[in-house]
Protein backbone atom coordinates (compact mmCIF):
# COMPACT_ATOMS: atom_id res chain seq x y z
CA UNK A 1 0.00 0.00 0.00
CA UNK A 2 1.07 3.51 -0.68
CA UNK A 3 -0.02 4.33 2.80
CA UNK A 4 3.19 5.97 3.81
CA UNK A 5 3.33 8.02 0.67
CA UNK A 6 -0.11 9.29 1.27
CA UNK A 7 0.43 10.17 4.83
CA UNK A 8 3.34 12.28 3.73
CA UNK A 9 1.34 13.82 0.96
CA UNK A 10 -1.23 15.05 3.39
CA UNK A 11 1.17 17.75 4.33
CA UNK A 12 0.64 19.26 0.93
CA UNK A 13 -3.05 19.72 1.45
CA UNK A 14 -3.02 23.43 1.79
CA UNK A 15 -4.58 25.94 -0.55
CA UNK A 16 -3.85 23.81 -3.56
CA UNK A 17 -5.87 20.73 -4.32
CA UNK A 18 -4.14 17.44 -3.86
CA UNK A 19 -4.86 16.35 -7.41
CA UNK A 20 -7.13 17.47 -10.20
CA UNK A 21 -8.73 15.53 -13.00
CA UNK A 22 -11.93 14.73 -14.81
CA UNK A 23 -14.67 12.27 -13.97
CA UNK A 24 -15.70 10.63 -17.21
CA UNK A 25 -18.70 8.40 -17.71
CA UNK A 26 -20.68 7.82 -20.83
CA UNK A 27 -19.63 10.85 -22.84
CA UNK A 28 -19.93 13.20 -19.91
CA UNK A 29 -16.84 14.72 -18.34
CA UNK A 30 -16.80 16.58 -15.05
CA UNK A 31 -13.63 18.38 -14.00
CA UNK A 32 -12.92 17.93 -10.29
CA UNK A 33 -10.31 18.71 -7.69
CA UNK A 34 -9.33 16.36 -4.91
CA UNK A 35 -8.81 17.24 -1.25
CA UNK A 36 -8.09 14.77 1.56
CA UNK A 37 -11.09 14.21 3.80
CA UNK A 38 -8.95 12.72 6.53
CA UNK A 39 -6.09 14.49 8.17
CA UNK A 40 -3.60 13.08 10.53
CA UNK A 41 -3.61 14.87 13.86
CA UNK A 42 -1.11 12.70 15.58
CA UNK A 43 1.62 14.64 17.30
CA UNK A 44 4.99 13.22 16.41
CA UNK A 45 8.33 13.62 18.06
CA UNK A 46 11.74 14.27 16.61
CA UNK A 47 14.74 12.16 17.29
CA UNK A 48 17.55 14.23 18.76
CA UNK A 49 20.97 13.66 20.31
CA UNK A 50 21.52 14.03 24.05
CA UNK A 51 22.27 17.72 23.63
CA UNK A 52 19.25 18.31 21.45
CA UNK A 53 20.72 18.20 17.95
CA UNK A 54 18.13 16.90 15.47
CA UNK A 55 19.20 13.61 13.94
CA UNK A 56 18.73 12.24 10.46
CA UNK A 57 18.41 8.65 9.33
CA UNK A 58 21.31 7.60 7.14
CA UNK A 59 22.22 4.41 5.35
CA UNK A 60 25.40 2.48 6.02
CA UNK A 61 27.08 -0.47 4.40
CA UNK A 62 27.32 -3.11 7.14
CA UNK A 63 30.46 -4.68 5.71
CA UNK A 64 32.37 -1.47 5.03
CA UNK A 65 30.96 0.37 8.06
CA UNK A 66 30.59 3.63 6.17
CA UNK A 67 27.79 5.93 5.21
CA UNK A 68 26.52 5.45 1.68
CA UNK A 69 25.56 8.07 -0.87
CA UNK A 70 22.22 7.73 -2.58
CA UNK A 71 23.80 6.79 -5.88
CA UNK A 72 25.44 3.79 -4.22
CA UNK A 73 22.09 2.37 -3.18
CA UNK A 74 19.76 0.24 -5.27
CA UNK A 75 16.42 -1.37 -4.65
CA UNK A 76 16.19 -5.13 -4.30
CA UNK A 77 13.31 -7.56 -4.07
CA UNK A 78 14.07 -10.53 -1.86
CA UNK A 79 13.24 -13.71 -3.79
CA UNK A 80 14.89 -16.07 -1.33
CA UNK A 81 16.76 -15.58 1.91
CA UNK A 82 19.49 -13.00 1.25
CA UNK A 83 18.93 -13.29 -2.48
CA UNK A 84 17.79 -10.13 -4.22
CA UNK A 85 16.67 -9.11 -7.67
CA UNK A 86 17.70 -5.53 -8.33
CA UNK A 87 15.01 -3.34 -9.83
CA UNK A 88 15.89 0.10 -11.17
CA UNK A 89 13.86 3.29 -11.05
CA UNK A 90 13.68 3.27 -14.84
CA UNK A 91 12.20 -0.23 -14.88
CA UNK A 92 9.61 0.72 -12.32
CA UNK A 93 8.71 3.86 -14.21
CA UNK A 94 8.09 1.80 -17.31
CA UNK A 95 5.62 -0.34 -15.40
CA UNK A 96 3.66 2.62 -14.14
CA UNK A 97 0.19 2.99 -15.58
CA UNK A 98 -0.27 5.51 -18.36
CA UNK A 99 -0.52 9.00 -16.97
CA UNK A 100 -4.05 10.24 -17.35
CA UNK A 101 -6.22 12.81 -15.66
CA UNK A 102 -9.38 10.77 -16.13
CA UNK A 103 -11.36 9.33 -13.28
CA UNK A 104 -12.87 6.54 -15.30
CA UNK A 105 -16.29 5.92 -13.81
CA UNK A 106 -17.22 2.48 -15.06
CA UNK A 107 -20.46 1.64 -13.34
CA UNK A 108 -22.92 2.63 -10.68
CA UNK A 109 -23.80 0.31 -7.84
CA UNK A 110 -26.00 0.35 -4.79
CA UNK A 111 -23.92 2.38 -2.34
CA UNK A 112 -24.99 0.25 0.63
CA UNK A 113 -23.59 -2.89 -1.05
CA UNK A 114 -19.97 -1.86 -0.58
CA UNK A 115 -18.54 -3.73 2.38
CA UNK A 116 -16.99 -1.06 4.64
CA UNK A 117 -13.88 -3.22 4.99
CA UNK A 118 -12.92 -2.03 1.52
CA UNK A 119 -12.83 1.66 2.35
CA UNK A 120 -9.38 2.96 2.94
CA UNK A 121 -9.04 6.74 2.59
CA UNK A 122 -11.41 9.49 1.59
CA UNK A 123 -10.98 12.55 -0.60
CA UNK A 124 -13.50 15.27 -1.23
CA UNK A 125 -14.16 16.09 -4.85
CA UNK A 126 -14.91 19.71 -5.65
CA UNK A 127 -15.97 21.20 -9.01
CA UNK A 128 -12.90 22.02 -11.06
CA UNK A 129 -14.18 23.89 -14.08
CA UNK A 130 -16.12 27.09 -14.56
CA UNK A 131 -19.49 25.41 -14.32
CA UNK A 132 -20.77 23.45 -11.35
CA UNK A 133 -23.81 22.13 -13.20
CA UNK A 134 -22.57 18.70 -14.25
CA UNK A 135 -21.04 18.20 -10.82
CA UNK A 136 -24.26 19.08 -9.04
CA UNK A 137 -26.28 16.95 -11.41
CA UNK A 138 -24.20 13.85 -10.75
CA UNK A 139 -24.05 14.47 -6.99
CA UNK A 140 -27.80 15.02 -6.78
CA UNK A 141 -28.56 11.94 -8.87
CA UNK A 142 -26.29 9.64 -6.91
CA UNK A 143 -27.52 10.92 -3.59
CA UNK A 144 -31.19 10.60 -4.51
CA UNK A 145 -30.84 7.14 -6.02
CA UNK A 146 -28.40 6.00 -3.30
CA UNK A 147 -25.89 4.95 -5.88
CA UNK A 148 -22.11 4.98 -5.79
CA UNK A 149 -19.87 5.19 -8.83
CA UNK A 150 -17.04 2.67 -9.10
CA UNK A 151 -14.08 4.20 -10.87
CA UNK A 152 -10.36 3.91 -11.38
CA UNK A 153 -7.80 6.62 -11.73
CA UNK A 154 -4.06 7.07 -11.75
CA UNK A 155 -2.38 9.31 -9.22
CA UNK A 156 1.37 9.56 -8.76
CA UNK A 157 2.20 6.48 -10.75
CA UNK A 158 -0.34 4.25 -9.07
CA UNK A 159 -3.77 3.14 -10.12
CA UNK A 160 -6.51 3.44 -7.52
CA UNK A 161 -9.89 1.82 -7.32
CA UNK A 162 -12.41 4.21 -5.83
CA UNK A 163 -16.05 4.52 -4.93
CA UNK A 164 -17.55 7.94 -5.58
CA UNK A 165 -20.23 8.74 -3.03
CA UNK A 166 -22.42 11.81 -2.73
CA UNK A 167 -23.51 13.29 0.57
CA UNK A 168 -24.96 16.67 1.31
CA UNK A 169 -24.52 17.67 -2.34
CA UNK A 170 -20.79 16.98 -2.18
CA UNK A 171 -18.97 14.13 -3.87
CA UNK A 172 -16.33 12.11 -2.15
CA UNK A 173 -13.90 9.60 -3.60
CA UNK A 174 -13.04 6.76 -1.28
CA UNK A 175 -10.08 4.62 -2.23
CA UNK A 176 -10.90 0.94 -1.94
CA UNK A 177 -8.64 -1.87 -0.89
CA UNK A 178 -8.20 -4.57 -3.46
CA UNK A 179 -10.15 -7.74 -2.76
CA UNK A 180 -6.98 -9.83 -2.57
CA UNK A 181 -5.64 -7.58 0.18
CA UNK A 182 -8.50 -8.59 2.46
CA UNK A 183 -8.79 -11.76 4.45
CA UNK A 184 -11.97 -13.75 4.85
CA UNK A 185 -12.96 -15.63 8.01
CA UNK A 186 -11.99 -18.78 6.10
CA UNK A 187 -8.52 -17.43 5.32
CA UNK A 188 -8.01 -16.81 9.00
CA UNK A 189 -9.50 -20.09 10.06
CA UNK A 190 -12.32 -18.69 12.19
CA UNK A 191 -14.79 -21.32 13.33
CA UNK A 192 -18.07 -21.69 11.47
CA UNK A 193 -20.96 -20.07 13.31
CA UNK A 194 -22.80 -22.21 15.83
CA UNK A 195 -26.27 -21.57 17.10
CA UNK A 196 -25.86 -19.97 20.51
CA UNK A 197 -28.05 -20.82 23.49
CA UNK A 198 -31.02 -18.50 23.82
CA UNK A 199 -30.31 -17.90 27.51
CA UNK A 200 -26.72 -16.82 26.77
CA UNK A 201 -27.90 -14.39 24.09
CA UNK A 202 -30.57 -13.01 26.43
CA UNK A 203 -28.03 -12.35 29.15
CA UNK A 204 -25.81 -10.43 26.75
CA UNK A 205 -28.74 -8.47 25.33
CA UNK A 206 -29.64 -7.40 28.85
CA UNK A 207 -26.21 -5.90 29.46
CA UNK A 208 -26.13 -4.47 25.96
CA UNK A 209 -29.41 -2.57 26.13
CA UNK A 210 -28.29 -0.80 29.29
CA UNK A 211 -25.47 0.78 27.32
CA UNK A 212 -27.45 1.91 24.29
CA UNK A 213 -27.03 5.57 23.38
CA UNK A 214 -28.28 7.67 20.50
CA UNK A 215 -24.99 9.35 19.61
CA UNK A 216 -21.27 8.94 19.75
CA UNK A 217 -19.49 10.80 22.49
CA UNK A 218 -16.80 12.70 20.64
CA UNK A 219 -14.69 12.87 23.76
CA UNK A 220 -14.24 9.16 23.37
CA UNK A 221 -12.65 9.75 20.01
CA UNK A 222 -10.02 12.18 21.22
CA UNK A 223 -6.43 11.23 20.74
CA UNK A 224 -5.53 10.92 24.41
CA UNK A 225 -1.89 10.12 23.76
CA UNK A 226 -1.35 13.30 21.77
CA UNK A 227 -3.27 15.37 24.30
CA UNK A 228 -1.14 13.96 27.11
CA UNK A 229 2.03 14.69 25.18
CA UNK A 230 0.99 18.30 24.60
CA UNK A 231 0.27 18.64 28.30
CA UNK A 232 3.76 17.49 29.24
CA UNK A 233 5.27 19.78 26.61
CA UNK A 234 3.32 22.77 27.95
CA UNK A 235 4.47 21.98 31.47
CA UNK A 236 8.11 21.86 30.38
CA UNK A 237 7.81 25.00 28.33
CA UNK A 238 6.55 26.87 31.37
CA UNK A 239 9.44 25.67 33.47
CA UNK A 240 11.89 26.29 30.63
CA UNK A 241 13.64 23.05 31.46
CA UNK A 242 15.04 20.96 28.62
CA UNK A 243 14.01 23.50 26.03
CA UNK A 244 16.69 24.04 23.42
CA UNK A 245 16.90 26.23 20.35
CA UNK A 246 16.62 24.16 17.24
CA UNK A 247 18.85 24.84 14.28
CA UNK A 248 16.95 26.84 11.72
CA UNK A 249 16.38 24.01 9.29
CA UNK A 250 14.94 21.73 11.99
CA UNK A 251 11.73 23.61 12.52
CA UNK A 252 9.93 25.26 9.69
CA UNK A 253 7.82 28.30 10.51
CA UNK A 254 4.15 27.46 10.30
CA UNK A 255 3.15 30.71 8.61
CA UNK A 256 1.12 30.66 5.43
CA UNK A 257 -0.39 27.25 5.97
CA UNK A 258 -4.06 27.35 5.20
CA UNK A 259 -6.32 24.94 6.98
CA UNK A 260 -7.59 22.08 4.89
CA UNK A 261 -11.13 22.94 5.84
CA UNK A 262 -10.68 26.47 4.56
CA UNK A 263 -9.22 25.28 1.26
CA UNK A 264 -12.09 22.84 0.82
CA UNK A 265 -14.70 25.46 1.53
CA UNK A 266 -13.11 27.82 -0.94
CA UNK A 267 -12.99 25.18 -3.60
CA UNK A 268 -16.61 24.18 -3.06
CA UNK A 269 -17.56 27.84 -3.29
CA UNK A 270 -15.83 27.95 -6.66
CA UNK A 271 -12.77 30.04 -5.96
CA UNK A 272 -10.05 27.58 -5.19
CA UNK A 273 -7.62 28.52 -7.89
CA UNK A 274 -7.85 32.26 -7.48
CA UNK A 275 -7.34 31.92 -3.76
CA UNK A 276 -9.13 35.23 -3.30
CA UNK A 277 -11.61 35.54 -0.51
CA UNK A 278 -14.99 36.67 -1.76
CA UNK A 279 -18.22 37.19 0.03
CA UNK A 280 -19.04 33.54 -0.36
CA UNK A 281 -16.09 32.42 1.66
CA UNK A 282 -17.54 34.37 4.50
CA UNK A 283 -19.29 31.09 5.19
CA UNK A 284 -16.23 30.40 7.29
CA UNK A 285 -17.98 31.89 10.26
CA UNK A 286 -21.25 30.26 9.38
CA UNK A 287 -22.35 27.99 12.19
CA UNK A 288 -22.68 24.35 11.27
CA UNK A 289 -26.29 23.46 10.81
CA UNK A 290 -28.58 20.82 12.29
CA UNK A 291 -27.24 18.87 15.26
CA UNK A 292 -25.32 21.91 16.32
CA UNK A 293 -23.80 20.66 19.52
CA UNK A 294 -22.06 17.86 17.76
CA UNK A 295 -20.90 19.84 14.78
CA UNK A 296 -19.69 22.65 16.94
CA UNK A 297 -17.58 20.25 18.86
CA UNK A 298 -16.15 18.86 15.69
CA UNK A 299 -15.37 22.35 14.56
CA UNK A 300 -13.49 23.08 17.71
CA UNK A 301 -11.59 19.88 17.47
CA UNK A 302 -10.62 20.96 13.98
CA UNK A 303 -9.41 24.30 15.24
CA UNK A 304 -7.26 23.00 18.01
CA UNK A 305 -5.82 20.52 15.63
CA UNK A 306 -5.04 23.23 13.14
CA UNK A 307 -2.03 24.41 15.05
CA UNK A 308 -0.73 20.91 15.53
CA UNK A 309 -1.24 20.34 11.91
CA UNK A 310 0.77 23.36 11.03
CA UNK A 311 3.65 22.02 13.03
CA UNK A 312 3.26 18.69 11.42
CA UNK A 313 3.31 20.12 7.98
CA UNK A 314 6.39 22.02 8.84
CA UNK A 315 8.06 18.85 9.92
CA UNK A 316 7.16 16.82 6.93
CA UNK A 317 8.18 19.56 4.55
CA UNK A 318 11.46 19.68 6.26
CA UNK A 319 12.12 15.99 6.12
CA UNK A 320 11.14 16.01 2.48
CA UNK A 321 13.69 18.74 1.97
CA UNK A 322 16.56 16.57 3.16
CA UNK A 323 16.04 14.36 0.16
CA UNK A 324 16.71 16.86 -2.54
CA UNK A 325 16.29 15.31 -5.95
CA UNK A 326 13.20 13.58 -7.18
CA UNK A 327 15.08 10.37 -7.38
CA UNK A 328 16.27 10.42 -3.83
CA UNK A 329 12.89 11.44 -2.58
CA UNK A 330 11.45 8.42 -4.23
CA UNK A 331 14.05 6.12 -2.85
CA UNK A 332 13.50 7.53 0.58
CA UNK A 333 9.84 6.75 0.33
CA UNK A 334 10.44 3.23 -0.81
CA UNK A 335 12.83 2.76 2.00
CA UNK A 336 10.10 3.72 4.37
CA UNK A 337 7.62 1.42 2.76
CA UNK A 338 10.10 -1.37 2.87
CA UNK A 339 10.82 -0.88 6.52
CA UNK A 340 7.60 0.16 7.96
CA UNK A 341 5.21 -1.87 9.91
CA UNK A 342 2.34 0.41 10.63
CA UNK A 343 1.98 0.19 14.40
CA UNK A 344 5.65 0.98 14.85
CA UNK A 345 5.50 3.91 12.49
CA UNK A 346 2.68 5.40 14.50
CA UNK A 347 4.18 4.98 17.88
CA UNK A 348 5.88 8.12 19.06
CA UNK A 349 8.47 6.20 21.01
CA UNK A 350 9.96 3.92 18.44
CA UNK A 351 9.39 5.57 15.13
CA UNK A 352 10.56 2.76 12.90
Amino acid sequence: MADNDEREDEGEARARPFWSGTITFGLVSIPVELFPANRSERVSLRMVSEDGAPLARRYFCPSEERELDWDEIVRGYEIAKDEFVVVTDEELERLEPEKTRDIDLRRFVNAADIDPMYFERAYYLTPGGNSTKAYRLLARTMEQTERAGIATFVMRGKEYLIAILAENGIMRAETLRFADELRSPDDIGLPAPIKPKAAAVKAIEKSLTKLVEKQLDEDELTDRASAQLLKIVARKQRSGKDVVDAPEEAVEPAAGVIDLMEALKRSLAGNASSGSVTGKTGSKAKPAKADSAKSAKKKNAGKVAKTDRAKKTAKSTKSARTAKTAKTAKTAKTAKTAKSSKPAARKPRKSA
Partner: protein
Amino acid sequence: MAARAIWKGRIRFGDVDVPVKLYSAVKSTGGVHFRLLHEKDLVPVKQQMVNPATGDVVAYEDVRRAYPTEDGRLVMLDEEELAELEPEASRDIEITRFVDPAVITHQWYDRPYYLGPDDSDADYFALAEALRSQEKEGVARWVMRNKEYVGALRLEDEHLMLMTLRHAGEVVPASALKAPGGRELDKREIQMAKQLVSALEGDLDLESYRDEYRERVLELVEAKASGKVLKFPKAPAKKKKDDSLSAMLVKSLEATKKSA
Protein backbone atom coordinates in the same frame (compact mmCIF):
# COMPACT_ATOMS: atom_id res chain seq x y z
CA MET B 1 -3.76 -21.15 5.62
CA ALA B 2 -4.83 -20.05 9.05
CA ALA B 3 -3.57 -16.66 10.16
CA ARG B 4 -1.87 -16.03 13.45
CA ALA B 5 -3.62 -13.88 16.03
CA ILE B 6 -1.84 -10.62 16.70
CA TRP B 7 -3.35 -10.00 20.12
CA LYS B 8 -5.62 -11.54 22.73
CA GLY B 9 -8.13 -9.68 24.83
CA ARG B 10 -11.52 -9.83 26.51
CA ILE B 11 -14.62 -7.97 25.44
CA ARG B 12 -16.20 -6.55 28.59
CA PHE B 13 -19.36 -4.68 29.41
CA GLY B 14 -21.89 -5.18 32.20
CA ASP B 15 -21.70 -8.85 33.15
CA VAL B 16 -20.33 -9.82 29.76
CA ASP B 17 -16.79 -11.10 29.41
CA VAL B 18 -15.91 -12.75 26.11
CA PRO B 19 -12.29 -13.76 25.45
CA VAL B 20 -11.26 -13.10 21.86
CA LYS B 21 -8.27 -13.23 19.55
CA LEU B 22 -7.59 -10.42 17.14
CA TYR B 23 -6.54 -10.92 13.51
CA SER B 24 -5.73 -8.30 10.92
CA ALA B 25 -8.33 -8.39 8.16
CA VAL B 26 -5.90 -6.66 5.80
CA LYS B 27 -2.93 -8.61 4.50
CA SER B 28 0.39 -6.86 4.80
CA THR B 29 1.20 -7.84 1.23
CA GLY B 30 -0.27 -4.69 -0.29
CA GLY B 31 2.22 -2.95 -2.55
CA VAL B 32 5.65 -4.36 -3.25
CA HIS B 33 8.28 -4.26 -0.58
CA PHE B 34 11.83 -3.59 -1.60
CA ARG B 35 14.97 -3.57 0.44
CA LEU B 36 17.66 -0.97 -0.04
CA LEU B 37 20.97 -2.55 -1.01
CA HIS B 38 24.50 -1.35 -1.36
CA GLU B 39 24.98 -1.57 -5.12
CA LYS B 40 28.54 -2.85 -4.88
CA ASP B 41 27.89 -6.03 -2.90
CA LEU B 42 24.07 -6.18 -2.89
CA VAL B 43 23.97 -6.35 0.89
CA PRO B 44 21.00 -4.70 2.64
CA VAL B 45 21.97 -1.33 4.03
CA LYS B 46 21.91 -0.60 7.73
CA GLN B 47 20.11 2.44 9.06
CA GLN B 48 21.72 4.62 11.68
CA MET B 49 20.91 7.96 13.20
CA VAL B 50 23.42 10.64 12.36
CA ASN B 51 23.90 14.18 13.56
CA PRO B 52 24.08 15.89 10.16
CA ALA B 53 25.96 18.86 11.62
CA THR B 54 28.88 16.77 12.87
CA GLY B 55 28.49 13.54 10.92
CA ASP B 56 28.56 11.57 14.19
CA VAL B 57 26.59 8.37 14.46
CA VAL B 58 24.30 8.31 17.49
CA ALA B 59 23.49 4.86 18.86
CA TYR B 60 19.77 4.13 19.13
CA GLU B 61 19.96 3.81 22.92
CA ASP B 62 21.32 7.36 23.09
CA VAL B 63 18.65 8.86 20.87
CA ARG B 64 16.29 11.16 22.74
CA ARG B 65 12.87 12.41 21.75
CA ALA B 66 11.95 16.06 21.44
CA TYR B 67 8.85 17.97 20.55
CA PRO B 68 9.35 20.80 18.03
CA THR B 69 7.43 23.87 19.14
CA GLU B 70 5.95 26.52 16.94
CA ASP B 71 8.53 29.09 17.97
CA GLY B 72 11.33 26.97 16.58
CA ARG B 73 12.54 25.25 19.71
CA LEU B 74 12.77 21.67 20.83
CA VAL B 75 11.36 20.42 24.11
CA MET B 76 13.36 17.39 25.16
CA LEU B 77 11.51 14.58 26.89
CA ASP B 78 13.07 12.17 29.35
CA GLU B 79 12.37 8.51 30.01
CA GLU B 80 9.91 9.23 32.77
CA GLU B 81 7.88 11.61 30.67
CA LEU B 82 7.75 9.15 27.81
CA ALA B 83 6.61 6.49 30.24
CA GLU B 84 3.83 8.83 31.33
CA LEU B 85 2.58 8.76 27.77
CA GLU B 86 2.19 5.03 27.71
CA PRO B 87 -1.32 3.81 28.37
CA GLU B 88 -1.74 1.28 31.13
CA ALA B 89 -1.42 -2.23 29.77
CA SER B 90 -4.64 -4.22 29.82
CA ARG B 91 -6.36 -7.12 28.12
CA ASP B 92 -9.77 -5.49 28.30
CA ILE B 93 -11.69 -4.40 25.25
CA GLU B 94 -14.05 -2.14 27.11
CA ILE B 95 -17.36 -1.42 25.42
CA THR B 96 -18.50 2.01 26.53
CA ARG B 97 -21.75 2.26 24.61
CA PHE B 98 -23.84 0.72 21.86
CA VAL B 99 -25.31 2.74 19.03
CA ASP B 100 -27.21 2.21 15.80
CA PRO B 101 -24.80 1.17 13.05
CA ALA B 102 -25.68 4.31 11.07
CA VAL B 103 -24.24 6.49 13.87
CA ILE B 104 -20.66 5.39 13.18
CA THR B 105 -20.32 6.10 9.47
CA HIS B 106 -17.55 4.40 7.57
CA GLN B 107 -15.74 7.75 7.34
CA TRP B 108 -14.56 7.04 10.87
CA TYR B 109 -13.29 3.58 9.99
CA ASP B 110 -9.57 3.10 9.83
CA ARG B 111 -8.46 -0.54 9.88
CA PRO B 112 -10.50 -3.73 10.16
CA TYR B 113 -9.61 -6.59 12.50
CA TYR B 114 -11.47 -9.85 12.75
CA LEU B 115 -12.15 -11.25 16.19
CA GLY B 116 -12.17 -14.97 16.78
CA PRO B 117 -13.16 -16.90 19.89
CA ASP B 118 -10.27 -17.48 22.27
CA ASP B 119 -11.90 -19.97 24.52
CA SER B 120 -15.58 -20.53 24.14
CA ASP B 121 -17.23 -20.52 20.72
CA ALA B 122 -20.57 -20.38 22.52
CA ASP B 123 -19.95 -17.01 24.20
CA TYR B 124 -18.49 -15.56 21.02
CA PHE B 125 -21.45 -16.46 18.85
CA ALA B 126 -23.91 -15.48 21.58
CA LEU B 127 -22.40 -11.98 21.50
CA ALA B 128 -22.59 -11.96 17.70
CA GLU B 129 -26.23 -12.97 17.88
CA ALA B 130 -26.99 -10.24 20.44
CA LEU B 131 -25.45 -7.60 18.14
CA ARG B 132 -27.56 -8.89 15.30
CA SER B 133 -30.83 -9.09 17.19
CA GLN B 134 -30.39 -5.62 18.71
CA GLU B 135 -29.00 -4.15 15.47
CA LYS B 136 -26.25 -2.33 17.33
CA GLU B 137 -22.55 -1.62 17.14
CA GLY B 138 -20.39 -1.15 20.20
CA VAL B 139 -17.84 1.61 20.82
CA ALA B 140 -14.75 -0.16 22.09
CA ARG B 141 -11.59 1.03 23.74
CA TRP B 142 -8.50 -1.07 24.28
CA VAL B 143 -4.75 -0.89 24.63
CA MET B 144 -2.76 -3.03 22.26
CA ARG B 145 1.02 -2.99 22.08
CA ASN B 146 1.36 0.17 24.12
CA LYS B 147 -1.13 2.11 22.10
CA GLU B 148 -4.69 3.04 22.88
CA TYR B 149 -7.34 2.35 20.27
CA VAL B 150 -10.96 3.30 19.83
CA GLY B 151 -12.97 1.02 17.61
CA ALA B 152 -16.38 -0.14 16.50
CA LEU B 153 -17.39 -3.63 17.55
CA ARG B 154 -19.54 -4.83 14.68
CA LEU B 155 -20.69 -7.83 12.76
CA GLU B 156 -19.01 -8.79 9.51
CA ASP B 157 -21.45 -11.34 8.19
CA GLU B 158 -21.50 -13.81 11.03
CA HIS B 159 -18.25 -12.98 12.76
CA LEU B 160 -17.21 -10.22 15.11
CA MET B 161 -15.04 -7.41 13.83
CA LEU B 162 -13.21 -4.58 15.53
CA MET B 163 -12.84 -1.62 13.22
CA THR B 164 -10.39 0.96 14.55
CA LEU B 165 -11.75 4.47 14.36
CA ARG B 166 -10.03 7.71 13.42
CA HIS B 167 -9.72 10.33 16.10
CA ALA B 168 -11.97 13.34 16.47
CA GLY B 169 -10.63 16.04 14.18
CA GLU B 170 -9.19 13.54 11.72
CA VAL B 171 -12.40 13.32 9.73
CA VAL B 172 -13.83 16.27 7.83
CA PRO B 173 -17.58 15.62 7.89
CA ALA B 174 -19.62 16.48 4.80
CA SER B 175 -22.12 18.19 7.10
CA ALA B 176 -19.51 20.83 7.94
CA LEU B 177 -19.14 21.78 4.27
CA LYS B 178 -21.36 23.75 1.95
CA ALA B 179 -22.32 22.13 -1.34
CA PRO B 180 -21.41 24.02 -4.50
CA GLY B 181 -24.16 26.38 -5.57
CA GLY B 182 -25.51 27.54 -8.91
CA ARG B 183 -28.70 27.92 -10.83
CA GLU B 184 -31.45 25.43 -10.07
CA LEU B 185 -30.93 22.20 -12.00
CA ASP B 186 -33.11 21.54 -14.99
CA LYS B 187 -35.73 18.82 -14.36
CA ARG B 188 -35.19 17.32 -17.78
CA GLU B 189 -31.48 17.03 -17.16
CA ILE B 190 -31.98 15.44 -13.75
CA GLN B 191 -34.23 12.93 -15.45
CA MET B 192 -31.63 12.19 -18.09
CA ALA B 193 -28.87 11.91 -15.50
CA LYS B 194 -30.96 9.37 -13.59
CA GLN B 195 -31.53 7.39 -16.76
CA LEU B 196 -27.84 7.44 -17.53
CA VAL B 197 -26.90 6.32 -14.02
CA SER B 198 -29.34 3.46 -14.20
CA ALA B 199 -28.15 2.53 -17.69
CA LEU B 200 -24.61 2.23 -16.31
CA GLU B 201 -25.76 0.33 -13.27
CA GLY B 202 -24.18 -3.01 -12.60
CA ASP B 203 -23.38 -5.53 -9.93
CA LEU B 204 -20.65 -4.72 -7.49
CA ASP B 205 -17.81 -7.09 -8.29
CA LEU B 206 -14.86 -5.74 -6.34
CA GLU B 207 -13.15 -9.12 -6.67
CA SER B 208 -12.59 -8.46 -10.36
CA TYR B 209 -10.27 -5.50 -9.73
CA ARG B 210 -6.65 -6.23 -9.08
CA ASP B 211 -3.62 -4.16 -8.26
CA GLU B 212 -2.18 -4.46 -11.75
CA TYR B 213 0.87 -2.34 -11.06
CA ARG B 214 1.86 -4.64 -8.23
CA GLU B 215 1.34 -7.66 -10.46
CA ARG B 216 3.50 -6.13 -13.16
CA VAL B 217 6.30 -5.39 -10.72
CA LEU B 218 6.23 -8.94 -9.39
CA GLU B 219 6.23 -10.25 -12.95
CA LEU B 220 9.27 -8.13 -13.72
CA VAL B 221 11.05 -9.44 -10.62
CA GLU B 222 10.30 -13.01 -11.61
CA ALA B 223 11.42 -12.47 -15.17
CA LYS B 224 14.66 -10.88 -14.03
CA ALA B 225 15.25 -13.70 -11.57
CA SER B 226 14.98 -16.22 -14.37
CA GLY B 227 17.10 -14.08 -16.70
CA LYS B 228 14.32 -13.15 -19.10
CA VAL B 229 13.61 -9.69 -20.45
CA LEU B 230 9.96 -8.71 -20.61
CA LYS B 231 8.27 -5.80 -22.29
CA PHE B 232 5.03 -4.46 -20.98
CA PRO B 233 2.76 -2.58 -23.30
CA LYS B 234 1.12 0.44 -21.76
CA ALA B 235 -2.59 0.78 -21.63
CA PRO B 236 -3.77 2.94 -24.53
CA ALA B 237 -4.62 6.52 -23.62
CA LYS B 238 -8.27 7.34 -23.63
CA LYS B 239 -9.66 9.85 -26.06
CA LYS B 240 -11.47 12.91 -24.92
CA LYS B 241 -14.28 14.99 -26.37
CA ASP B 242 -16.00 18.09 -25.22
CA ASP B 243 -19.52 19.15 -25.79
CA SER B 244 -22.45 20.57 -23.93
CA LEU B 245 -23.67 18.60 -20.97
CA SER B 246 -27.14 18.03 -22.40
CA ALA B 247 -25.80 16.76 -25.68
CA MET B 248 -23.46 14.41 -23.89
CA LEU B 249 -26.21 13.08 -21.67
CA VAL B 250 -28.36 12.38 -24.71
CA LYS B 251 -25.52 10.77 -26.65
CA SER B 252 -24.50 8.70 -23.64
CA LEU B 253 -28.01 7.44 -23.21
CA GLU B 254 -28.23 6.55 -26.89
CA ALA B 255 -24.94 4.74 -26.72
CA THR B 256 -25.93 2.70 -23.67
CA LYS B 257 -29.27 1.85 -25.26
CA LYS B 258 -27.58 0.59 -28.41
CA SER B 259 -25.18 -1.58 -26.53
CA ALA B 260 -27.88 -2.93 -24.26
